[in-house]
């Protein structure tokens, strides 16, 4: 029901676009720094750990770059990043809408004749769905840069040239699209679940906190479930 109320034609398009831009900035652009930091470090660590675990002389060194790329493109930049964003963005959405509910700001909108669900939720959902591919691309790029950095700076046996060769080895462009499509679904899951928990808060500050926690937990579970389903649908 809430979804039906949210996904409807906005009362005024100019206000909707204003909100959309605000949400893209708040939920997307403001998340760039955390995406970049986590991706660089995880990319570095993945490369180091793979190089430490591949000690057999029968396995070529470029496998380190190849495996790092596959992990980052297939799973890290979309699914793991979505789990991180569920914590940052999901809790933000749930607590913001929840606070508006308990302080009667949503009632104030309803009294004015504004479709509060549409005004508050739709721009958040669309904003995150529009911007999450940008976050995924940034995550892929910076994650791989982290791996390259590791190849230059560690003495675990991998060389920059073998790592770069591995990055280019048997590259499948579809994996990028696969990751982006998954992330858009995750963005929908994060924003809609968080909005649902926030919008239906009853009580005070304690309940807003609980709603925020529940939103993150539920989004994380749904992301993992969606990951399995989408991987089956798109890769098998």
């Amino acid at each position, binding site marked *: 029901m809430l979804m039906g109320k949210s996904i409807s034609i906005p*009362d*005024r398009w*100019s*206000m909707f676009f204003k909100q959309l831009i605000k949400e893209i900035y708040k939920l997307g652009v403001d998340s760039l720094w955390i995406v970049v930091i986590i991706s660089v470090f995880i990319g570095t660590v993945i490369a180091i750990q793979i190089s430490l675990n591949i000690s057999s002389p029968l396995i070529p060194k470029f496998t380190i770059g190849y495996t790092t790329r596959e992990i980052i493109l297939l799973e890290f930049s979309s699914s793991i990043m979505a789990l991180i964003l569920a914590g940052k963005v999901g809790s933000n959405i749930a607590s913001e809408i929840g*606070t*508006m509910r308990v*302080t*009667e*700001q949503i*009632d*104030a909108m*309803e*009294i*004015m*004749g*504004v*479709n509060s669900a549409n005004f508050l939720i739709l721009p958040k959902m669309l904003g995150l769905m529009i911007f999450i591919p940008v976050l995924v691309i940034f995550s892929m790029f910076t994650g791989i840069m982290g791996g390259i950095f590791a190849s230059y700076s560690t003495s675990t046996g991998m060389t920059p040239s073998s790592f770069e060769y591995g990055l280019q080895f048997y590259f499948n462009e579809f994996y990028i699209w696969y990751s982006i499509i998954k992330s858009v679904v995750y963005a929908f899951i994060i924003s809609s679940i968080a909005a649902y928990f926030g919008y239906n808060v009853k009580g005070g500050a304690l309940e807003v906190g609980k709603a925020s926690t529940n939103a993150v937990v539920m989004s994380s579970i749904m992301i993992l479930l969606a990951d399995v389903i989408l991987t089956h649908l798109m890769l098998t």
Partner: protein
Amino acid sequence: MIEVKNITKSFDGRAVLKDISTTFEDGKTNLIIGRSGSGKTVMIKNIIGLMKPDTGQILYDGRDLITMNKHELNMLRREMGMLFQGSALFDSMTVMENVMFPLDMFSKDSTKERRKRAEFCLERVNLSEAGHLYPSEISGGMMKRAAIARAISLNPKYLFCDEPNSGLDPKTSLLIDDLIHDITVEYNMTTVINTHDMNSVMNIGDNIIFIKEGVKEWQGTKEQVITSNNQALNDFIFASDLFRKVKEVEMLQEEG
């Protein structure tokens, strides 16, 4: 004019409103008074359509709120202004943006005209200098005034106030009361105020409805409150020493 006809409301089998009927007239400040938990908030929420009564009718100039479809209800709501207990200003917007919000959403005027209207409303509540501030940067009294400015920005026919004086000092409360009363008369609005502030009752109560345990116990004007013989009303009104003394003086004057 708003007519409430035989409304009842129950929660989990417990009756909160029991067959209440009353009329709120244009250009008057109508007060709903009663103890905490007597059903005042439930009644005002039913009147504005945030809750649906189990039975009865709520007529806005003859239009029944209960039987309205979503579109009709939204149209009616654009004729309403509401002042919430906690002001309910939007935290993410400045005072000016808050007042502009209903205009931006529904007014067909140009941006310049909308801004002019918002500035007029802020000026009307003596808040012109605070337009650029966020709700967290202003006092409780200023928040109430900003909420009044937002409520009147679309020239509503009906104004609802839920505990407008809660959390305010007596002087600021009087200021808010006077402002609501003046606006009501100025724009010939139907104003309904939910309160347990006796200063408001004595100051602006053109029409007072006293509710006790979900039942309309008494209805009259502020002048009639003092002389009423209704025991439940007297117990409520004259619980304060100050008002008891006011009544004693009134009685002495009448006798003398």
